[in-house]
């Protein structure tokens, strides 16, 4: 680990993140920057597959993002982030509390994201990209479900500035990418879900100004425009693009 920090050009020991610019990739890129880790970004061009989205968004397995750290290969953005938060807990932002009970609260909010929040957020986003989707959803029916979803966020923020307590943790990190997409829709009602709740809106604004998030947006924007052949020089580490690849299947083991 120390070697990696002192010799960032040691290619063998660098972590690799295979990723695209869409959705779940953002959490992994965000997290790596929060930890200030050296890594190599391998851009996987998913445009061809975005067109074939079904409503669960993520096609199963062999998908990006995938993290390679030595001989370990991990997919699933939350599994990647938990690993990085624990393995590199002394680097950068501390994304997981040390206390077992506080960690359990973080886990609870991450589960809420997966089980309660994401499915509804994704449904509202499908309306926005319905030119890519093969299904047409009844927008008004789904709206009422989505409106219920940030309710929990309001309750939590009356007690503490972040979901799991006083500091920014994985629980907050994983909520930001779907919220980012919700706020970039054209539908005012969707945006209003966030902005009509002052505590929630304040929390979102705080997170949006984090340097790691701004870097994430910058990198994903570049990937989107596929200008990533040049070396990117960011203030905390170099990101070298290795190759353009089309669909990549990784066997998990």
């Amino acid at each position, binding site marked *: 680990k120390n070697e990696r920090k002192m010799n960032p050009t040691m290619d063998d020991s660098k972590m690799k993140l295979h990723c695209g610019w869409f959705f779940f990739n953002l959490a992994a890129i965000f997290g790596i920057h929060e930890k200030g880790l050296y890594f190599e970004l391998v851009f996987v061009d998913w445009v061809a597959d975005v067109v074939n989205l079904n409503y*669960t968004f*993520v096609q*199963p*397995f062999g998908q990006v993002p995938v993290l390679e750290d030595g*001989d*370990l290969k*991990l*997919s*699933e953005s*939350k*599994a990647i982030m*938990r*690993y990085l938060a*624990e*393995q590199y807990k002394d680097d950068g932002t501390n994304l997981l509390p040390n206390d*077992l*009970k506080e*960690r*359990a*609260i973080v*886990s*609870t909010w*991450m*589960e*809420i994201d*997966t*089980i*309660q929040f994401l*499915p509804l957020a994704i449904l509202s986003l499908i309306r926005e990209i319905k030119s890519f989707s093969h299904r047409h959803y009844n927008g008004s029916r789904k709206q009422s479900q989505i409106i219920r979803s940030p*309710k*929990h966020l309001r*309750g939590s923020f009356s007690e503490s500035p972040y979901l799991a307590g006083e500091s920014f943790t994985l629980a907050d990190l994983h909520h930001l990418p779907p919220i980012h997409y919700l706020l970039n829709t054209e539908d005012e009602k969707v945006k209003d879900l966030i902005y009509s709740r002052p505590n929630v809106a304040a929390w979102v604004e705080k997170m949006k100004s984090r340097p790691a998030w701004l870097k994430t947006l910058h990198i994903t924007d570049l990937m989107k425009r596929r200008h990533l052949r040049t070396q990117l020089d960011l203030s905390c580490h170099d990101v070298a693009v290795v190759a353009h690849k089309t669909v990549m299947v990784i066997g*998990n*083991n």
Partner: protein
Amino acid sequence: KQTRSQFYLALTLSSALRQMVMKVYGDGMSACVARVLLCLHEKETEFELVPVDLFACHHKLPSFLSMNPFGQVPVLQDEDLTLFESRAITAYIAEKHKDKGTDLTRHADKEAAIVKLWSEVESHHFNPAISAVIHQLIVVPLQGKTPDAAIVEENLEKLGKVLDVYEEKLGKTKYLAGDSYTLADLHHVPYTYYFMKTGHAGLVNDRPNVKAWWEDLCSRPAFLKVSPGLTVAPATN
């Protein structure tokens, strides 16, 4: 004199421990509650099951909502900690008691990461498909409505694709995250148990590695303690 004071100390401690037993709020017929119960049994941890009458909607009362604003079971209380979301609860129990009972999370960093990976796979890929089928075939009839065949069809197809990946993985390792039973396997059990009662058990039985894995999961003592509580039956097709 010393042994007497030790004796009284032991008595005080044991009564204090009685009060410190974890409480699980819920009903054993709920798959999500069963997930937590399985974990507690695997970790040989004492607990108290506090019944919540789901049919009378006691989980929507303000007293319950103050514990879980989503109005869902299970809820765990451990002294001053209140947790909900079954997978956050199992992760907490498994870590708190990591030196007792079955090793559900693995200690070595990279092995632990693989366990979390396959736990995420269950959450993101397996659960949405299987719970949609269970919802249509078990919950919807209880509400006096007819199951939506299109939703069942669509989710059976998704589930089939997930099980294809499991079939391949389980040909390489005995369990999902490696050669020992972990949380990644445990989380699958309750919904799969209900699923096997529907007319679609073929999805599992037609895949030899998945079938062998499932039969192994059903042979575990913890499962044999929890499965009698999983009493809800699906509507016949």
